[in-house]
């Protein structure tokens, strides 16, 4: 189609009518995409239903030196030794099943057979890393507090 503006210099220029039409189309898609993005914000949780990641596990004297205590509701093993106290999470780092401590102090995950040594290091199986050692602090009321979201490096023991 020829018009008075055609020619090498004006080739790229689009007509006002076309420009407005295209702008309308893009505005339509922009609106729809913005609406979808807005709606999809809703399923992303900002508040989590779980209880606080910090929880008290008891007074230090409840964990006498040389004992390993299983806190099944907290999914923890607490090891108390000469050089300090440590909390190891039982949540398998593979897919979130709970490992079980064997008689030889190793941990085995029932779901895919992962094996960890007594310090939580991976011996065999699919987990990407060892069991999580968690931070222990002393609360103001004299109870030990574990934070399940604060991981410390393996074999870290806390002197209380």
């Amino acid at each position, binding site marked *: 189609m020829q018009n008075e503006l055609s020619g090498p210099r004006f080739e790229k220029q689009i007509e006002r009518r076309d420009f407005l039409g295209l702008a309308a189309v893009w505005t339509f898609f922009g609106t729809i995409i913005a609406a979808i993005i807005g709606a999809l914000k809703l*399923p*992303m*949780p900002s508040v*989590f*239903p*779980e209880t606080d990641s910090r929880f008290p596990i008891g007074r230090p004297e409840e964990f006498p030196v040389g004992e390993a205590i299983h806190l*099944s*509701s907290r*999914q923890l093993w607490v090891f108390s030794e000469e050089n300090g106290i440590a909390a190891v999470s039982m949540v398998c780092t*593979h*897919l*979130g*099943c*709970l490992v079980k401590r064997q008689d030889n102090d190793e941990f*085995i*995950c*029932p*779901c*895919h*057979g992962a094996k960890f040594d007594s310090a939580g*290091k*991976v*011996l*065999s*199986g*699919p987990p*990407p*890393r*060892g069991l999580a050692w968690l931070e222990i602090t002393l609360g103001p009321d004299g109870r030990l507090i574990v934070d399940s979201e604060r991981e410390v490096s393996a074999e870290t023991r806390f002197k209380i």
Partner: protein
Amino acid sequence: MSYNATRQFFRNIRNLFRNFRESAIRHGRPTSDRARTQTVVQNFFLHIHPARTHTHTLKWSTTMGLGIMTTVLFLILAVTGILLMFYYKPSVETAYDSIKDIHYVVPTGRIIRNVHRLSAQGMVVLMILHMARVFYTGAYKSPREFNWVVGMLLLIITLGLSFTGYLLPWDQLAYWGVTIGSGIAGSPRDLTDALGITQYFDPGGLVREIMLGAHMVGQEALIRFYTLHVIVLPIALVVVLGVHFWRIRKDGGLARPVSADPPVFAEGVGPEDAPTKSFGLMAVVRERTPATDKEIENTVPSWPRVFRLEAILTMVALLIVVGLSLFIDAPLEEQAADPPVPLNPAKASWYFLALQELVSYSAFGGGMVIPGIIIVSLLLIPFLDREEDDVGIWFGGRQGRRITVLSVAYAVVVCVGVLAFTINFGWLRNWLPELTQKHVRATQIVIMLFNPGMVFVVASAIWSLGLLRLTNSTRMASVGLLTCALVFFIILTYFAAVHRGPNWVFYWSQADWPVIEH
């Protein structure tokens, strides 16, 4: 005679039923081809069918009724699912008890629940068989490539429905099955962890949070899975299924071989031999009337033959699922979900067991990378194999049958060999314990990319490329590839179902399982 409203009124009463029928159905009885056509075209519920159907489509060997049966099972699932919704309560306190009520108290509840569960399993089986049928008859080829892609979408939605339905009974099996499943969804974190970028970019954690609405499987996850299961995914399935059916019509009906439409002209006489004047054709055409520019119609009116077949398939499907549901109870663990005590072994539904076996080597490698490769390869098949000679022929003829058998043998040897190897010798960590302890991140990336599942993928690819070179046919290469994939899927499913016991350890049979105290 003048118009008498009173008399007309009584006449209307007398003709009430006839007038009502004629207002609803505007055509006569289907005694002529024209009326049969109208029966299909003018009926809202039937008009998704073509007015006429090719005779090849109606043959048992063309489709074996697999697609129709899958659809019938979906309809059964929709009806029984709505019935179950009358009693099911999606909350962690009441879900398990309400399933127990449905099973033991609600009139016919047990049968309805069994039918729902068996239809779901049957739908997955038939869908896989339907996919195999479409593949082996070459029905994914041009112009039907896009409908193969739509079918893949249906496969994913159906598996999503199965997975979300698995959680709803809220028993131990459901809880741990979905814990593992959501772990797989979050497994990209293994990769980001190994690369040390999780704190900046964490797609695994994000997907898992959106899926569960929390960090653990709980009330939020239950209500999300319920919403997906009863509304979101069924609506998605119906829409995509509509597209799937619509495309069958737009793509020219079901795929059929060239031989299904025999030429109009007598043997040895082609149109190029015929005189150019039309009267000359009368001597050539093997029909009672001369038809120019027109092939013989190999179609019959869809009414009643198509509908008779569909009715038969519906009855067969109903008979099988209702019959089986009288004897096979849907499982319900004796315990409601008990987060501190994992089930041992915690197995997923059977169609996810192959995946679970792969995941037992690496969560991200087996649960994401390999399924991703399989889905992408399946999607690409119709675009990479565009040979159209043997469309509509099972296995593409004799050569294809032989290659299918060879591929089965090859895949069985590879799969059983690799499994036997891993049982006896373990995998990377067992060989180099010191080294893998020292380089945890590097080990993880290596295991992610180099695990038994990847061996299967590479073995299939090599086999397929070998066939490509040997037979000089992309069709044969794709037959080899899909056959390998199907065999691996079947063997891994069987292996995980039968030979994996507590702690995912290999046992020859369940009788050898040790007793586990919780």
